[in-house]
């Protein structure tokens, strides 16, 4: 019972800071609103070519009024980590880092070291693309890799306001029904990195998901220059 009360207390406390801390999207005090803040991560089969995989990384978001988005930060290296042997340690990385008006991509390559420290794998250039403004500028390399970097719609959808009440223990009804609920992310923008890459370049994987299907196990990190 004591434990219960304590946990309930945590719920109430959470509501105080919830607006700042409640999502991957607007996640932790240490990254919220800064240029290394990861808003979202997607990975899917290309709708136009099933032999390609698409990765999207959204950095920053302006979902809340005091959260600006963009520009990209030259001191921030974004890294898509790919585990192909099921040990949850990255076997390959795809990296993106901006210089002036261009986003440079590297990999897929075995990283110099795994874990929390990274260096740009300059020996494995993948391609580069001009950073877009309102209109999308894209490029496709000779290897069939498509690249994009720039501001885009934040596609995430979530009634974030009601969620704060739910985790705060102040919403006995829980979430609101369809029609009353509000997508807090409607109208929000984010700085997006998009790469579409042939699976043949990503290579083989032996990792399995819980259903026994063969998958890449992927995650994204941002890394700031020391």
């Amino acid at each position, binding site marked *: 019972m004591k434990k219960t009360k304590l946990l309930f207390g945590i719920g109430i406390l959470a509501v105080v800071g919830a607006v700042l801390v409640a999502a991957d999207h607007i996640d932790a005090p240490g990254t919220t609103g800064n240029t290394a803040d990861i808003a979202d991560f997607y*990975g899917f089969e290309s709708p136009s070519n099933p032999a390609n995989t698409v990765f999207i990384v959204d950095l920053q978001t302006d979902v809340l009024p005091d959260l600006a988005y963009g520009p990209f930060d030259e001191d921030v290296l974004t890294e898509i980590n790919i585990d192909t042997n099921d040990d949850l340690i990255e076997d390959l990385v795809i990296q993106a880092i901006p210089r002036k008006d261009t986003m440079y991509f590297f990999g897929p390559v075995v990283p110099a070291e795994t874990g929390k420290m990274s260096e740009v794998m300059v020996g494995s250039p993948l391609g580069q693309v001009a950073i877009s403004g309102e209109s999308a500028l894209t490029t496709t390399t000779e290897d069939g890799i498509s690249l994009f970097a720039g501001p885009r719609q934040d596609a995430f959808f979530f009634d974030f306001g009601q969620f704060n009440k739910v985790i705060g223990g102040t919403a006995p009804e829980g979430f609101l029904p369809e029609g009353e609920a509000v997508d807090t992310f409607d109208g929000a923008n984010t700085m997006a990195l998009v790469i579409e890459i042939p699976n043949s370049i990503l290579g083989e994987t032996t990792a399995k998901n819980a259903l026994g299907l063969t998958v890449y196990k992927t995650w994204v990190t941002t890394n700031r220059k020391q």
Partner: protein
Amino acid sequence: MKIHTLKYMFLSLCAATMFVACDDDDALEMVETTCTDGIMNGTETGVDCGGTSCQPCEDGGGDADGDGDDMMVTPPDFSGTYAQVDFMGRPGINTVLSIDDFKDPYNQAVPSTIAEFYQKDFENRLEGLHDVYAELLGLDPDDVNYQPNILGDILNGPDKDGFTDNPVSAELLTTILANDVLEVAPDLPTTYFNPGTGAPDYEGAIGLTGRTLQDDVIDVSLILLFGGGDGARFNGQEVEGVGTFPRLVSDGVAITANPTDTFPYLGAPE
């Protein structure tokens, strides 16, 4: 040798007098291009840069028009070490299962160690959220615990009952979720999660092959966390003798952005 000497003399003259608009058709085309001679020659569009053989030119006049005011590009400097600041795999993990105390250190974690350090916190958080609703319903929190979810049936076969035979316990679920990676199948269509026909058989259930822009990842997460054995345990329903249960298995919103089927897939900024 004599001819070469003459050519270099002519080139030097070009440079000295800034007379550099050498036509492709003139005799200079015969000169072997060099990218380090301090002279704009061959197909170069600036001094020692541009054209078919040399590094691209950087904007000197910005025009690459052959007037010699363009400069060689300084290769971008990517040196140094970069330390992890933020981390994300599955959507909604930090959202629902993390709390203030460990959101920052969680971002510094790596997937291979997250389960070890955070699974217990996630489990406590999950049970804690159920306790919150027990309190709101005026029930004893000891009676309103996490119940195994529909993954039990999907992972172990449709004939089993998620409540009893194939329990996906709070511990097991949070252990799976704590391995915070997004699984992307290279050779299968992408479905974040689709329970198929639903309870009790879940025929056609598929998923865990990636995440599209349209997937309602929050609803899926909520179903797994609060849906219990039939996926609708906390669904705003009236329960005799207890009252109205909270609506916790959907946040009630669908996508409002406008993703497309063509690269780069995301809609234009608003």
